[in-house]
């Protein structure tokens, strides 16, 4: 417990502590306004055509906001000193070695995927996926106001990615990952000699496949099936729907691929944590 107190009062962890309150607060604020819109309808045009002068009304708001933020920053800077440890020493590796706090969700992915996926491919896909959002979300509703009813899928996917896969993993990485990158609960002592037996096996092994070649094909079939079966099934089910006609095949394939890539992380986490699965697909060139 003492260790945990030490951890949460570390100066560099203050932002994460702040986010523990900020994120729920803003979710609540957005939810309140979304429910208001969903109950009473989108605010009428008349109220919105009401224009005000930027000077003084907007500039005043900006000024007040800037003063408040500078006050908070000033107090923060006076109260809490930036950390400075001993001089860098390439021969002395700390355990655990952690990336800066905003990259800890990425570092967390390393537990479940090899570095080329967790460190390069998935971050790349996050960037591509974020940029693609406006071009694949063809729903014209819900522009410029909070709502849930008019775009439930988009909100659910983004919120899951942002809150669970980014913020929560970041918090886990900061507060619960200790020596050897093992999970330590807040009340546990960070024992650098803690041993966690690695009993993970590949998915093909669980299915009784012992031959490398067969395992390779089995893994390929599972991964290919994961990316193909769901999208093909829904495409076949929805192919005459108006929604799919408007979305188009190209957008549909991009949306489903990006979505399945994102969901691969929680799926792999469950496979690892519940069934000790190491790799789904072992090939001579790479492992997934």
């Amino acid at each position: 417990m003492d260790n945990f107190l030490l951890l949460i009062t570390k100066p560099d962890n203050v932002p994460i502590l702040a986010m523990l309150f900020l994120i729920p607060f803003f979710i609540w604020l957005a939810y309140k306004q979304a429910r208001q819109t969903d109950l009473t309808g989108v605010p009428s045009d008349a109220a919105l055509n009401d224009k005000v002068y930027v000077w003084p009304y907007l500039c005043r708001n900006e000024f007040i906001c800037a003063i408040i933020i500078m006050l908070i920053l000033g107090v923060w800077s006076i109260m809490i000193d930036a950390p400075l440890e001993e001089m860098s020493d390439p021969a002395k590796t700390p355990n655990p070695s952690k990336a800066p706090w905003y990259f800890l969700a990425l570092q967390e992915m390393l537990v479940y995927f090899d570095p080329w996926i967790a460190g390069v491919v998935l971050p790349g896909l996050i960037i591509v996926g974020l940029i693609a959002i406006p071009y694949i979300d063809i729903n014209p509703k819900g522009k410029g106001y909070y709502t849930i009813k008019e775009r439930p899928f988009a909100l659910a996917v983004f919120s899951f990615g942002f809150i669970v896969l980014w913020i929560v993993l970041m918090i886990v990485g900061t507060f619960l990952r200790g020596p050897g990158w093992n999970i330590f609960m807040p009340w546990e002592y960070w024992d650098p000699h803690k041993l966690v037996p690695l009993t993970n096996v590949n998915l093909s092994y669980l299915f009784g496949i012992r031959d490398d070649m067969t395992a390779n094909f089995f893994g390929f079939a599972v991964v290919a099936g994961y990316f193909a079966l769901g999208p093909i099934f829904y495409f076949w089910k929805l192919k005459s729907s108006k929604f799919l006609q408007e979305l188009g095949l190209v957008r549909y394939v991009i949306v489903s691929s990006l979505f399945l890539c994102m969901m691969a992380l929680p799926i792999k986490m469950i496979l690892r944590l519940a069934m000790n699965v190491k790799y789904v697909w072992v090939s001579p060139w790479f492992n997934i």
Partner: protein
Amino acid sequence: MNEERKGLIDKITNSDIWKSIFRHGYEKTGRRYTLQVLQNVWLHLHPPRISRHALNFRFTWCMGGITFLMFLVTAVTGVLLMFYYRPVAEYAFRDVQALEFDIPFGMLLRNMHRWAAHGMVISVMLHMFRVFLTGSYKKPREFNWAVGVILLLITFFLSFTGYLLPWDQLAYWAVTVGTNMARATPVLGHEGPFAPADIITQSNDVRFALLGGTIVGPSTLLRFYILHCIAVPLVASLLMALHFWRVRKDGGISGPL
């Protein structure tokens, strides 16, 4: 007394010098409010008038503005820190120590720089969250969302390159862990899949290009310093100008219309 003071103020604001600096008068009219924004280089990115709901803190969360404010704070404190810091492995850590113990308000300066940088990372993430929740990326703002995503990455990269500069254990190993990923880049990293083993080695892959060596060392420090103080802020400033300009050109802040 009051009359006297008013006369004096009038005299000053009617002088040639004053009028050469501030071209608008001070009457409370829409024309003056408009001129005040249009004729001020710092304010002219704003339109003269905006819809009332754009003033609503509950709608905007003010996060974009806070991000920009944090950028300005880091720019000012960063320039001041540069007077005391040398990006050389022998000096870097000592200079940071000197900032803490010898230089008047050095600690406060460093604190402000670091906490403003952390604040910027938080506010830029919340800004993106708000823009998504209000569907503000939708037509015609698709491109500006893309610029925003790049700016988000730049914010992370600015913070990450700055993380190394104190040259202490925390900095050194955080950057080691972060840059170790690059060696697993497919094709271009020496431990990545599909990398031709006889061509891509640890002294010519992407990680080597980033670090200027096979481990984080003095040349990494110099590289990150230049990226942190010159290259990335320059790109960030250009993209921010584009981002703000596009906010206005795409119809101002989004609203239900």
